[in-house]
């Protein structure tokens, strides 16, 4: 049975931590705060998740900062860090293959695309308005909720020791994963494909519109 008091306390810590960190502009204070909050969170969640607590705190902090930060490049850096720390969290949740894939695809591949795009935007421009920030807070809250529920549901059943050491037979994991993806969840794939196709067509449409606007602007400029 989940102790809802502890769950709420842990959730509160995850959500309050980024705001408290923002109050100070000193690295030493940041480190001390991080250690203290990690300790409290680890204590609340028990010895099973004590190694995961610092990672969870980092993940939610970076995720929150990615939406709070108004400078585009900084936000992209925070997003990259959130991806990486989330990837490493999977190792402690017995999903090492998912960790490797998450880090290489999102931490390596997608993040570099986001960074390339961010560099092309004016460094001082602000693209985050109040509404976007509220959405960001909601998403961060959801992320914190998911992580907390993962810990309370997943970690006590597993063994952190086996999660780190006894990770044999990666191929069996891939096989199982593929099997479920293409059997149990096979009906989801056409919808996903339609969604991706829709976004692709939308992107092309937007690019063409931008091109027309740009051409008009250039003609006016000439």
């Amino acid at each position, binding site marked *: 049975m989940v102790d809802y008091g502890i769950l709420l306390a842990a959730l509160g810590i995850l959500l309050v931590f980024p705001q408290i960190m923002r109050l100070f502009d000193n690295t030493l204070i940041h480190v001390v705060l991080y250690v203290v909050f990690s300790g409290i969170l680890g204590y609340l969640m028990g*010895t*099973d998740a*004590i*190694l995961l607590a610092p990672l969870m705190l980092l993940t939610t902090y970076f995720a929150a900062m990615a939406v709070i930060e108004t400078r585009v*490049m*900084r936000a992209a*850096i925070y997003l*990259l*860090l959130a991806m*990486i720390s989330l*990837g490493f969290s999977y190792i402690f949740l017995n999903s*090492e*293959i998912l*960790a*490797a*894939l998450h*880090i*290489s695809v999102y*931490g*390596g*591949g997608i*993040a*570099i695309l986001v*960074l*390339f795009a961010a*560099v092309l935007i004016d460094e001082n421009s602000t693209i985050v308005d109040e509404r976007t920030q509220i959405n960001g807070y909601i998403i961060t809250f959801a992320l914190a909720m998911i992580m907390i529920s993962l810990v309370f549901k997943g970690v006590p059943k597993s*063994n*952190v*020791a086996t999660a*780190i*050491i*006894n*990770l*044999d*037979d*990666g*191929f069996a*994991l891939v096989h199982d994963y593929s099997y479920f993806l293409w059997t149990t969840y096979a009906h989801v794939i056409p919808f996903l494909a339609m969604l991706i196709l829709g976004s692709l067509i939308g992107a092309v449409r937007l690019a063409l519109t931008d091109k027309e606007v740009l051409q008009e602007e250039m003609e006016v400029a000439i």
Partner: protein
Amino acid sequence: MTDSPVYEPLLQPLFNFLPDKMTTGVVVAITTLLLGSWVMIQQLFGPWVERKVMARMQGIRGPTYVGWKGILQIPADLLKLIFKEDIMPARADRLGFFISIALISITSIISFAPLPWGTNLMGANFGVGVLYVFAVFSLFPPAMFIGGWSSNSKYALIGGFRSAGQLLAYEIPMFLYGIAIIAVNGTFSLRTITENQMASGVGWNLFSHQLGFLGLITGFIFFIAGVAESERIPFDIPEAEAELVMGPRTEFSGWRYALIMMVEYIHLTVNSLLFIYLFFGGYDAIPWVDLAFEHNWAVQIIVLTAKLYLFVMIAAWLRSALPRMRIDQLLSLGWKQLLPIAIIASIGTLGFVKPSLLGLDAMFKWIISAVTFVLIFLFMFLHFRSTRRRN
């Protein structure tokens, strides 16, 4: 621990006061740190070997003053750099400047975890060993890019762009070459791949008849991709001195510069080690035979270190002998040549080992090997001919 490593009896009793599950985690962390330190010590002497080899090729003497034959030159340089003033350029992005160095160095150290230095001498026997190393490696392009951007310097920014583009271009073919070996062995574990090569009657994958000699092509090109991943001459486009001063590293000084240069050698070391594990027998001393002394952990460490230095020398030889490529030549080599060859070679290797995958009988496997060789040479011939015509 399931692997009963040599260090376990030494470390386990020291942490008995911790909960059982934590003890294992702490022991893994400490072991990775110890083995990582061993690799870091190699970083102090590897560059000395490289500079001596390069000096010999250029008809000069190389480092001579500090220590015997100049062997302590690199530790002396390191000490000097650590004690230098830490300078950050004006208007540099503090977070990016710090994060890039932290990401680069931390990911370098943690990439040692699944690398076995002996049968039972490794940080953690990850089931996803190779995949883990590649995943960690994939964090270098964004880190270098952030470093270049945050320096607030045009040289660093252009270098960062180039570095990210180059690392991406060579990561994919490198992984594809590795996939053939991984699939043939049926595991991601570097230890199991090495142990398979140690068995009696089985040669190292580079020239194994069990792979239809396709390991020769995949291994050779994996090594080239590894050198390109290390951003070394002839692939040092990101830091081309004549154009970009030091590329993304231009504005880093003091301990940051020491760290980033060390990471460059760690890259070379890890790429060489990956090549050794996947193609060159790992810590196996003699191919085709399985002798008792080969299973001694001290022998295994010595053999692996010797192989590592052999590849450091080969890298130094390449660095002295070859001119730098242009950025377009480099990207063309990665995307237009290595990637298609990687796909052909991987399918060929899989087809040779498991012909049923291609719907063929086992008697056709040598034909598959021959066809793969012919296809690759034909592709290379046509590509070079079209490139020559364009130029």
